[in-house]
């Protein structure tokens, strides 16, 4: 099995083994052994839920440090639209763009255009698609991994359209290379991200050889210097015409924005991994076959609820709505042109998304059935209160670990008590 890249690291020297990460992990990918948390590689889908709950700050996202993102001749910032919602709504968003330039970027690229284009591409794809329904949005890397790992049979339903951040990065690189006469390798596109999972789609993309994005810094890391820079800009110094990068027309920072733009009548927007799981179960049971499109995001509320933002999601959502009212949600993409580009494959994925199913209990079906029976028997013998003292998040996960040979029945403190008493 190849090693999967995960954008999350547990620092053993900081970990106190308090198990908060283990309990919150939606795919039960964390075990606490000898007082230290460990991630089970194949189970982790990079949702980042563990980062926020760790009381010791031992779980760190492996985004790039802000300084190292500036090691390119020509530096392009590609901010997640969520960045604009982290400031007070009174703050002129053009100042944020200017601020990014003051702290070291040469160019700021707005992902709005790419979002519009992708929504048209998805709409076009849906209009001629006659296969199994519903299609599932491709935006959230954690959801895509969850599907690959736990719902391999649904992998074929993930819309085979490139994500806006990749399209924006590719188009801006090609444009700048042409205009400035510099090589593509001299242009660094840095995504300013709300979550660690986007790092995976940059370092180890599921559907192509390599990403067009060169690095990712978190909103949390960039916010300090950026806030200072933005505060220094006086109102009269706002660059009214020069801000190449702010429209905010279609930034998909909030849940529901994508389905709104794709314009499908029968669509569902869902967020939070446990709710996403319910919807994916329904899709597997073919219960949602009259739904055309499902927008599914790992973080509650969409990217605006990401782990690496600084503002509370509800405040940020209110600010986003103010920005939308002020700067409009006018659609500016030239539909015919986008459709033409879509037909030429401009928005297609480089390669098909492949399932990444979990290792079965045993490669041999007969043995797997035996192990499943053993697991169920062990589970019934356990207290089933999910105390976590054995180092597994639930009694069920513990029973499975025993059958897989990674835990021992003696690790259950309740069984010890029974025997001693």
């Amino acid at each position: 099995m190849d090693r999967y890249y995960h954008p999350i690291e547990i620092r053993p020297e900081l970990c106190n083994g308090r198990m908060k990460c283990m309990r919150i992990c939606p795919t039960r990918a964390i075990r606490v052994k000898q007082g230290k948390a460990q991630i089970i590689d194949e189970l982790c889908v990079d949702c980042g839920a563990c980062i926020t709950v760790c009381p010791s700050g031992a779980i760190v996202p492996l985004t790039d440090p802000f300084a190292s993102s500036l090691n390119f001749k020509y530096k392009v910032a590609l901010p997640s639209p969520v960045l604009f919602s982290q400031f007070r709504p009174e703050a002129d968003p053009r100042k944020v763009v200017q601020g990014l330039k003051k702290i070291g970027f040469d160019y700021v690229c707005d992902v709005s255009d790419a979002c519009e284009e992708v929504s048209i591409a998805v709409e076009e794809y849906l209009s001629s698609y006659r296969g199994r329904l519903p299609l599932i949005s491709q935006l959230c890397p954690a959801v895509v991994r969850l599907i690959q790992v736990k719902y391999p049979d649904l992998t074929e339903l993930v819309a085979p359209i490139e994500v806006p951040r990749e399209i924006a990065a590719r188009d801006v690189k090609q444009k700048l290379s042409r205009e400035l006469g510099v090589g593509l390798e001299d242009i660094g596109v840095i995504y300013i991200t709300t979550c660690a999972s986007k790092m995976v789609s940059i370092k180890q993309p599921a559907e192509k050889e390599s990403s067009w994005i060169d690095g990712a810094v978190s909103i949390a890391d960039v916010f300090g210097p950026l806030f200072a820079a933005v505060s220094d800009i006086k109102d009269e110094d706002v660059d009214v015409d020069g801000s190449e990068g702010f429209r905010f027309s279609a930034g998909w920072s909030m849940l529901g924005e994508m389905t709104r733009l794709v314009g499908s009548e029968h669509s569902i927007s869902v967020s939070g991994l446990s709710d996403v799981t319910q919807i994916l179960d329904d899709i597997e049971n073919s219960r949602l076959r009259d739904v055309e499109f499902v927008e599914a995001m790992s973080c509650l509320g969409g990217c605006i609820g990401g782990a690496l933002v600084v503002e509370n999601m509800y405040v940020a959502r209110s600010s986003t709505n103010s920005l939308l009212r002020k700067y409009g949600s006018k659609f500016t993409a030239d539909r015919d042109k986008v459709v033409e580009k879509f037909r030429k494959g401009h928005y297609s994925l480089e390669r098909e998304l492949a399932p990444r199913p979990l290792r079965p209990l045993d490669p041999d079906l007969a043995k797997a059935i035996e192990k499943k029976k053993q697991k169920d028997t062990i589970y019934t013998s356990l207290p089933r209160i999910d105390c976590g003292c054995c180092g597994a998040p639930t009694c069920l996960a513990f029973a499975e670990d025993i059958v897989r040979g990674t835990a021992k029945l003696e690790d259950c403190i309740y069984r010890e008590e029974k025997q001693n008493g």
Partner: protein
Amino acid sequence: MSDDVLFFKEFSIMGKDFSNAGSVSTEIKSILKEIGFDRLIVRRAAIASYEAEMNVVMYAKRAVARLSATPTSIKIEFQDEGQGIADVDLALEEGYSTATPEMREMGFGAGMGLPNIRHNADEFDISSEVDKGTHLIFTIHADGNNG
């Protein structure tokens, strides 16, 4: 490969219990996935079980579902107590449904339930008695290999 290796589990389903509707088929699906059957086989078993479970929830008083899995076959049984089906052949026709307008409004009653189960199964057997109940057994063949 030996066929005497059997995984067996029984589930109970209550009629009109819409809040839990689908949970048995979801569990059956999880078990089959966990054992590691081919995903297309799991898909067929999941769809057929879901349809059968919804039939119980909508039309019957209660039912017992039984899953028997071996490396080469997945047999699923739904035995319910309830109104039964007066004309089984008619019920097997696509588009035939006795669903009320209310059920249709809820998204059920397209008359695809039983035909869909039969379509997804390799073996299919149904017997029913009016005012007693319906006994449905379907089997999906597996090739003994891990998916």
